[in-house]
């Protein structure tokens, strides 16, 4: 019986082309927008190498960095600048490249009961929310968005955790937006996801972050971990190539009327516009 299982597993593992696979750790926000699938499809089109099975795995940025530390992924796309820097400082990551960015936006109910639209900055808007105890929905999941949100609260000089008006959804970006919309609450969201969900939400964007929400590519250090260096390098080169950057620049234009991300590099004749703030 155990023998049957082993035979089945070995058979399956043979069919999956063993050690040549390229495991890409990707932040959920890149997958949830649908950009990941397009980039991977384009990569496969350009590099139809059957030896390398591309395995993009989407999960929270925090988790991806942990997987990278263990050498479980070959390359990662994340938006956690501080953790990324530490990964490289520790020698687990190398060759960090900027891929694209968008902005974190504070969104809230259309009537803006707190009047955050008048706030000069995100920390100022956060202070307004805390002062009036307006409901705020937090991801609460150690994602890139959540980490940035906590940094902003610190800048505002407020510790909201545990307050009755501060609610942690513990869910993905899209789900958290739906929760905020339903409760008539404020929340911080990356502009790309907001554009995707905008139609279904009773939420308006009010204040944009001054710092970009930067997505970076990092390769896992092949000197320290047993990774697929060649394929990872090829993928990194591809992502920073004009072709991939054009995919990023175009992504969302047709479906949502505006792009979701700003590419980091040249894309030829294309220009890109981030989500507009009134």
């Amino acid at each position, binding site marked *: 019986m155990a023998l049957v*299982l082993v035979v089945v*597993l070995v058979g399956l593992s043979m*069919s*999956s082309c063993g050690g040549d696979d390229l495991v890409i750790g990707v932040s959920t926000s890149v997958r*949830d927008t649908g950009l990941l699938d397009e980039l991977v499809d384009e990569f496969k089109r350009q590099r139809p190498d059957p030896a390398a099975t591309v395995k993009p795995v989407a999960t929270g940025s925090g988790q991806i960095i942990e997987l990278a530390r263990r050498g479980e992924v070959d390359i990662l796309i994340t938006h956690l600048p501080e953790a990324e820097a530490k990964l490289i400082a520790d020698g687990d990551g190398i060759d960090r490249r900027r891929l694209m960015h968008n902005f974190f936006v504070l969104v809230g109910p259309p009537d803006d009961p707190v009047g955050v639209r008048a706030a000069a900055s995100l920390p100022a808007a956060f202070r307004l929310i805390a002062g009036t105890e307006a409901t705020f929905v937090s991801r609460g999941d150690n994602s890139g968005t959540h980490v940035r949100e906590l940094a902003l609260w610190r800048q505002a000089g407020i510790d909201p955790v545990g307050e009755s008006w501060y609610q942690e959804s513990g869910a993905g970006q*899209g789900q958290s937006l739906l929760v905020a919309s339903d409760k008539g609450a404020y929340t911080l969201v990356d502009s790309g996801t907001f554009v995707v969900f905008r139609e279904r939400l009773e939420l308006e964007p009010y204040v944009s972050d001054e710092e970009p929400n930067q997505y970076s590519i990092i390769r896992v250090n092949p000197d320290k971990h047993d990774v697929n260096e060649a394929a990872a390098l090829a993928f990194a080169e591809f992502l920073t190539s004009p072709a991939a950057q054009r995919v990023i620049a175009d992504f969302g234009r047709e479906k949502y009327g505006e792009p979701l991300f700003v590419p980091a590099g040249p894309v030829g004749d294309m220009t890109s516009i981030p989500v507009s703030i009134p």
Partner: protein
Amino acid sequence: MELIWDGITEALRLIFSGDAEVYEIMLLSLAVSAAATGIALVIGLSIASFLAFRAPPGRMLALSILNSGMALPPVVVGLVVAVMLWRTGPLGQLHLLYTPAAIVIAQAVIATPIVTALSVVALQTLHPKLRLQVLALGASRWQAAWLLFREARLPLLAAVMAGFGAAISEVGASIMVGGNIKGSTRTLTTATVLETSQGDFETAIALSFILLALVYAVTLTFTIIQQRRRAS
């Protein structure tokens, strides 16, 4: 409500327009869950035969563990299987993580306690001496097993259906060990989760509807097999 109606319409469109991606996802779901159920059945019947016929000491303990195993959370299974299959994990050399095989393993782990526990019940519906009678008629061990499984086929098919249902409807483990990779490990449930998180509820509902239809079709087939003999 309108959304659900739109979803069902979309589901019918996807099915009848022969949408290649949807068909690929359907076939993968079916193949992966069928393989997982098959493995669960082989393991489950072996364990169940041992527990039901040999009545070993500690059977109560084994049965209670199996019964609570029926409520094994898929996410826990996914996590454990993923850690086992990590490159640095004990089975890392197999390079199975983020492949359909990994989903098969995780679903098999989920389905096995269900199939086993229900198979024990199924085999216990047989007369305790029937195994002796079959052996006395001159059956080899395998012949005896085959005959006894055939005798208990009605409740055993119920066990198979329950195991398949648990496998194909599971999502947490599939995402964790499969990675929901387009064209490779995207199943109906993980695709549904993805569409939901992308805000495309219409497609999500369409995929859910297709999943339900698929489960119904498979279960219907089994039910027909199960009840046909009974009617005669």
